[in-house]
């Protein structure tokens, strides 16, 4: 009876351990952030990404959702999946993203779907970056629209993105950003303009 009880406990424990590991890594669901998190006005990151210092949860989550990510000396990655009002990003809504100078050599903002891939559309409008901001006239003050349908001005398509997220990449970040991210970074604002079902 003791052996049966031990075996049953072991099997149930192993099943729960497996499920918890897959959930933490984001193999099932979005993944779990445990420790080392940085949050700047809703844009989250982790300075241990890509490095040997990453804890096993971060390492597994990044392997699933950010394979081949660089260490913070080369690039930092901030992600958010809610607008400034705290509502989940949705393909059904239109957003205005606005910001200014970023503390690094080059930056970009890209839309990804819930499985961490570029949304499956052919709109050829996948990201907005420093090159686009400079081309629009002022790399220090910029705005673009995220929506499923083409918009006036600079536009990033969320067509076929579902419940998406956005990643802000800053390449060659300044030492100030690495040392004190909340003080050095004024991240982009993301304002919801309208949603299809509200029109």
């Amino acid at each position, binding site marked *: 009876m*003791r052996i049966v*009880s*031990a*075996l*049953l*406990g*072991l*099997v*149930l*424990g*192993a*099943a*729960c*351990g*497996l499920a*918890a*590991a*897959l959930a*933490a*890594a984001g*193999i099932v669901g979005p993944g779990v952030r445990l420790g080392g998190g940085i949050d700047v006005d809703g844009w989250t990151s982790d300075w241990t990404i*890509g490095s*040997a210092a990453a804890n*096993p*949860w971060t*390492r*597994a989550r*990044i*392997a*699933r*959702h*950010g*394979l*081949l*990510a*660089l*260490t913070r*000396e*080369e*690039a930092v990655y901030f992600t958010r999946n809610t607008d400034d009002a705290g509502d989940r990003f949705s393909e059904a809504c239109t957003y205005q993203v606005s910001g200014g100078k970023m503390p690094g*050599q*080059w930056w970009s903002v*890209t839309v*990804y779907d819930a499985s*961490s*891939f*570029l*949304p*499956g*559309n*052919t709109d*050829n409008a*996948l*990201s907005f*970056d420093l*090159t686009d901001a400079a081309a629009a006239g002022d790399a220090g003050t910029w705005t673009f629209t995220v929506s499923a349908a083409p918009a006036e001005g600079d536009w990033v398509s969320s067509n*076929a993105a579902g419940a998406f997220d956005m990643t802000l*990449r800053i*390449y*060659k970040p300044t030492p100030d950003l690495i040392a004190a991210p909340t003080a050095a970074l004024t991240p982009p604002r993301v304002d919801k303009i309208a949603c299809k079902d509200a029109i």
Partner: protein
Amino acid sequence: MRLPGIGLAAFVIGLVATHFIVLNALPGRIMSKARERIVASGAPVHEWRMTPRVTPQTQTIVRPSPDLAYAICLIDTSNGPVVLSVPTWPEYGSLSIFDASTDNVYAGSLDSRLPDAPQLRTVVVTSTAMQTFGPRVDVSSVVALKNPRALALIRRLAPSQGLYDTAAGLLPESRCEPLL
């Protein structure tokens, strides 16, 4: 120990052991799968290969940047060190190396605008089991791996087809080969 106690203890042991075994195995497994996909796409070991310009239709690895031109080289140091040599780029660019457990073990800039930027970024990749390697080359860095398999990646800012083509044109000048 009573029956419920034995069952509970076994449950906790099973949970914790399985959780950490799976968690620690996942990055290596995911990297291994990614390598298999790259090999299946026709990329040989020790040869730079441009990945197609990033679009939703061509993406094979999570969260690719559509603004960058990527080139990949599969590395295997089982039979000795491997040398990487890559021309710089007039915009943002980097040469990076990822080990079998997904760690970014090396990242060097390819931006030719930076002070003291070399014309070629040269790195020797070796196994920790090997303390020395043969011929002397002018290297920026020596990277020691715990596992002989790794993946090298070139990123170059190339948001247009023209710039992608220019980046692809640099591949013949790039080396990823055994250091003889």
